[in-house]
């Protein structure tokens, strides 16, 4: 059965979202249509506002609504440490622990030859600039413990070596194949404390 044009279009757009299959897309579309028009407008505006105002932090590449994000511009943060993560979700997960006082660097992905993601497609170049600018003593690699994340960490270790920065890796012990944003706060805090020289 084909839906009228505008509904079909809404379902199609929702279906593009990660984790939303055709059935969920339909459910969400019908839900939105069943609510007051005002609600739909608020949602649409929130999406637009976020999309237009949010950009990458000039320093760490995390999402921010200012040129430099809140963590990077906080003078109390320890600027001698940078923790490298794959995505902004991981920053949020580490921040929730309240046990990390250094800075971050968001790669926006991991190296994967199979998906055509090379070192130039993530923010490694920007990270190297930050390290060359000096002042950083420890680079904590917190990429995911999966195959791509491990390889990305190993690659970083190699290209950073000439810069004389201490490189550590989060301790294992995260859930099987688990990403940072799935782990509970205690587990992440332990992984952080148990980090080792790579």
């Amino acid at each position, binding site marked *: 059965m084909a839906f009228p044009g505008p509904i079909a279009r809404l379902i199609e757009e929702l279906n593009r979202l990660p984790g939303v299959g055709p059935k969920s897309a339909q459910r969400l579309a019908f839900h939105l249509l069943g609510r007051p028009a005002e609600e739909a407008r608020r949602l649409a505006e929130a999406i637009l506002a976020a999309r237009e105002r949010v950009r990458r932090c000039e320093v760490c590449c995390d999402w921010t609504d200012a040129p430099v994000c809140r963590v990077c511009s906080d003078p109390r943060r320890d600027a001698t440490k940078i923790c490298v993560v794959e995505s902004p979700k991981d920053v949020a997960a580490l921040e929730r622990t309240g046990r990390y006082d250094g800075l971050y660097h968001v790669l926006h992905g991991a*190296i994967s*030859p*199979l998906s055509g993601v090379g*070192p130039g497609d993530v923010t490694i170049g920007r990270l190297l600039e930050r390290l060359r600018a000096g002042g950083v003593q420890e680079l904590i690699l917190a990429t995911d413990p999966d*195959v791509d994340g491990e*390889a*990305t960490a190993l*690659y970083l270790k*190699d290209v950073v070596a000439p810069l004389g920065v201490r490189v550590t890796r989060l301790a294992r012990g995260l859930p099987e*194949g688990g990403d940072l944003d799935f782990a509970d706060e205690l587990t992440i805090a332990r992984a952080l404390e148990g980090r080792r020289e790579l």
Partner: protein
Amino acid sequence: MAERRLLSRLYLRDFRSYPRLELAFAPGLNAFVGPNGAGKTNLLEAIHYLCLGSSFRAARDAEAVAWGADGFFVKGRLRDEAGDLDVEVAFRPGHGKVVRVGGRSLGSTAELYGTLPCVSFRPEDLEWAKGPPAARRLWLDRLLVQTSASYRAELLAFREALAERNALLVRNRHEKAARALLVAWREAYLERAAALAAERARALAEIGRRAAEELGALTGESLALAVVSGGEAVVPAAGEASAWRERYAAQLEAVAEEELVRGHTLAGPHRDDILALLDGRDARRYASQGQQRSLVAALKLAEVGHIEARLGRLPCLLLDDVFSELDGSRRARLGEAAMTRAQTFLTAADDRLLPEVAGARVFDVRPGAAQARDG
């Protein structure tokens, strides 16, 4: 006493030669009897789908779709102490395969493994000792994914690392990759390769001990299983990941140039072989027909023992024609050790080839239909 999980019913829709079929099984022996081409093996294949989500003979699911149909559906009702559990496998070319357990769709077929463990024994298995290495690797993989969640995880991670590294090697042929990138992927690959090989070696040691016991009882011969890696036999007890890492690193070093040319990873668990030593001699070269048969019977019994020990539950047995190929003692031992305890599905061309087991249910099979005898 091991718990049992039985396949109590099977329902097929457009699977191979069956447009539609429903069967109720006995807890012990179920025999499919009929002439060549009647569709006996098709039934075992359907049951294999319920166990591993895939065929034991076709590489592509599409081959199992009844000619002219747009997909197949296999459903089994499992029964154990806890009650009934339905397993469903639905496939449509172009739409992929959906596996459901208890009404819930699984994220991947791997989640099905172990739900209804099985040991299959088919005519090809008689070639175990002399067949290609890939068949022996597949034999071990199919067993271990059913009994070990960590093996499943390691196998998936290894395959991913292998695919990534191969992709890098291929790209590198067109556009030289940075040295650091090649190093990083070699290290990441070695990590997964070593972890998988170590786990595989430990499991093989255990299965080897069981098989040796079985073969000793059958023929009095001694048996040892080993992994052959880089042309060198490795005692499986050497289940240390660090040792495997060193071994594969050395092998990669030796083939480094060739890999860059071929764009393919040339050392790792996917290139290793499994070796059986009968009274100290390589079965690939020296085993007679009869010795090969005894060896396979011993391996099958070892699989049953391994599954029972690991899962606390007996597997079902899928015996395709081979039972009639075994003689006296091998047959008796398989029969008594397994069939009288585990639920068994076997095929035979006619009644004279059936083992005598009380409570057996015989199904007459003809193209497109199968019917239980006596009701």
